[in-house]
């Protein structure tokens, strides 16, 4: 028994080597007997990615558990819908997309570990995933080291541009600045109270918001507050806000805390009748958990709302509901996540290859456009971000929003001068 550990390992090793040898002739056989209609695997994948003659494997990496699951569930549903639709159209370069899904579990080290698994062990051609900025920052070094390709769907604080990431959500200037401009103009807002969850996205967003409020709008920030992620007690903060009497509460509370925050605001008698509230962290997904009655009359600034009235969106909403049920709702990030596989498809087909470097090179030409995007027309910019419009929605009791403002198409500017 003393040596059992050693011999077991030895056996495993032997089995591993044997498997390798057995796979070798099979691989040679497969690559030579390729069907002529689709390009041979050796041509379209030269870096050892998980591409076979009729499949290509991608990864989906979102939190299915933990405090972020409320937000991330929709994103992975949309990605699966897009992948299914692409497969129904015949796949990419004659290959059907296969998905390996991993759970980031709302835990940033887990995200890093799982992304390493997807890239190193599974050799996926692209990963659709991550949601919070903290999780993106955690996986970024892994993607850069292993030269992976990540399609990141969330609106975020900007100040980042990696060769290995395509950002399908809006960066700060496409969301934060326009939202503040709108509320300053429409609501004559002068004083702002900033509140967010305590991690990188709310903190950086608030830093940008504060600069914009003080330097550009000539307003005043009367309070800035961060609560630990997952916290459910907002009593003291709400009293502080009452004391400061801001014109606008500017909120970036995320995840499960979001529900507690709005429930307690309502319970404290702070409703849209008395108080203007603009949030950058509530989409239809969150409203499902928060309850429309707790949000009625408050505003969100996003680039997409489910109620948007155009043909692309109607088709998208119908397909989404068919796949995931009539009760499902679609939020901003869900829509942005849906764009990921389509943008990847466009770039791969242009490059004629799944190789990450070639796909990135195509994406960086700055002229990949999607005319079928549910939010309307989008175009991929050289800087890996999307041109998009900002929209302000006012929440109704039924959990849908009325779009009250739509901007022009805004050029993405992840490193805005004067905000760093």
């Amino acid at each position, binding site marked *: 028994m003393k040596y059992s550990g050693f011999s077991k390992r030895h056996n495993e090793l032997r089995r591993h080597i044997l498997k390798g040898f057995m796979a070798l002739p099979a691989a040679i056989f497969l690559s030579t007997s390729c069907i002529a209609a689709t390009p041979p695997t050796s041509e379209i994948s030269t870096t050892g990615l998980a591409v076979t003659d009729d499949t290509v494997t991608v990864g989906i990496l979102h939190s299915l558990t933990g405090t972020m699951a*409320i937000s991330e*569930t929709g994103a992975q549903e949309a990605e699966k819908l897009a992948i299914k639709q692409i497969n129904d159209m015949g796949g990419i370069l004659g290959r059907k997309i296969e998905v390996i899904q991993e759970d980031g579990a709302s835990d940033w080290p887990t995200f890093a570990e799982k992304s390493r698994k997807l890239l190193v062990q599974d050799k996926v051609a692209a990963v659709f995933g991550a949601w919070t900025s903290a999780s993106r920052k955690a996986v970024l070094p892994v993607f850069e080291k292993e030269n992976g390709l990540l399609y990141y769907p969330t609106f975020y604080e900007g100040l980042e541009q990696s060769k290995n990431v395509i950002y399908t959500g809006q960066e700060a200037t496409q969301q934060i600045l326009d939202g503040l401009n709108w509320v300053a103009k429409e609501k004559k807002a002068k004083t702002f109270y900033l509140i967010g969850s305590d991690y990188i996205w709310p903190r950086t967003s608030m830093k940008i918001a504060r600069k914009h409020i003080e330097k550009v709008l000539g307003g005043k920030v009367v309070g800035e507050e961060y609560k630990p992620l997952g916290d*459910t007690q907002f009593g003291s903060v709400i009293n502080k806000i009452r004391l400061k009497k801001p014109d606008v509460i500017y909120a970036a509370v995320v995840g499960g805390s979001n529900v507690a925050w709005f*429930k307690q605001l309502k319970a404290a008698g702070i409703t849209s009748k008395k108080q203007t509230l603009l949030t950058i962290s509530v989409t239809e997904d969150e409203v*499902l958990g928060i309850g429309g009655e707790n949000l009625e009359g408050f505003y969100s600034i996003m680039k997409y709302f489910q109620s948007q009235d155009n043909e692309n969106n109607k088709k998208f909403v119908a397909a989404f509901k068919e796949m995931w049920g009539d009760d499902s709702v679609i939020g901003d990030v869900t829509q942005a996540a849906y764009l990921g596989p389509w943008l990847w498809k466009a770039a791969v087909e242009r490059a004629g290859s799944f190789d990450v470097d070639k796909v990135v090179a195509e994406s960086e030409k700055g002229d990949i456009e999607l005319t079928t995007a549910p939010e309307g027309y989008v175009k991929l910019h050289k800087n890996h971000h999307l041109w998009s419009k900002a929209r302000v929605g006012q929440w109704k009791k039924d959990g849908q929003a009325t779009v009250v403002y739509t901007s022009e198409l805004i050029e993405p500017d992840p490193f805005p001068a004067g905000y760093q």
Partner: protein
Amino acid sequence: MGDYTSSELVSIFAMQGFAGISLFSVLLLMALGLAIIFGQMGVINMAHGEFMAVGAYTTYFMSSLTETYFPSFMPYYFIFAIVVAFFVAGILGYLAEFVLIRHLYKRPLDTLLATWGLSLIMQQSFRTLFGAREVSPTLPDWLLGSYQPTETIDIPLNGMFVLALTAVVTLGVFYLLYKSSWGLRVRATTQNRVMSGAVGINTKKVDRYTFALGCGIAGIAGAAFTTIASTGPTTGTLYIVDTFMVVVFGGAASLIGTIVSAFSIAQAQSILEFFISGSMAKVYTLFALVLILMFKPEGLFASKVRR
């Protein structure tokens, strides 16, 4: 703070005082069940948070059921749901004790591990049964909004409800433990298990019901918290740290200790939070707690039982 009238400041302080009391009632309700189990049986129940989640999910289930089949009953279902949550969590606790815990009484560290495993199993079951998304029951109208004694004071109704519920549950627990004959048997077993067995107390039965009661109270807590926050598969883990903090700080075997500890932690936190930011308030509170526990490792109210 020049542009505030004195009446406005008074209102803010009144509301802030209530925020502190409200946090106190939340912490106490969370900790009561754990304190009973830990204090009376010496079992560290890592699955306590999940029993709270059981209560919360029961409430959600009752809410959906009522909404679909008896919409006219909506205003009243919540009270009923709390009772059901108590029994569902209690019965699950009873089963957990019977199947798992009772085999491990002589190995306290193993109960820690076993109940942690139980918590993982329960989390996965929630995920399978109710999905990964967080859910909220539809609350009756009388639990929404605020009570306005004056023009400028808003007291949250859900906070008042949780406060009242905590008072009822705490009094109930005191009555059970210190006035009923069952409580006498529980306390006797805690003091001297062998002797209690010798005078004819069925100590195993006492254990089982104590555990079930603790879990049942966790269920009530879970049901009450649906008025404040949402419920997800891992909701329990959010509460467990605060719960342990209250119980350990108060002294393991003392209900009074639990109450005092919940009160001081809640006040410290909500007052600090009013003056500095939320994250830092938590840091200072925990720091103070560590300092106090360094000098009083038994907690505020050490148990006087000779071991």
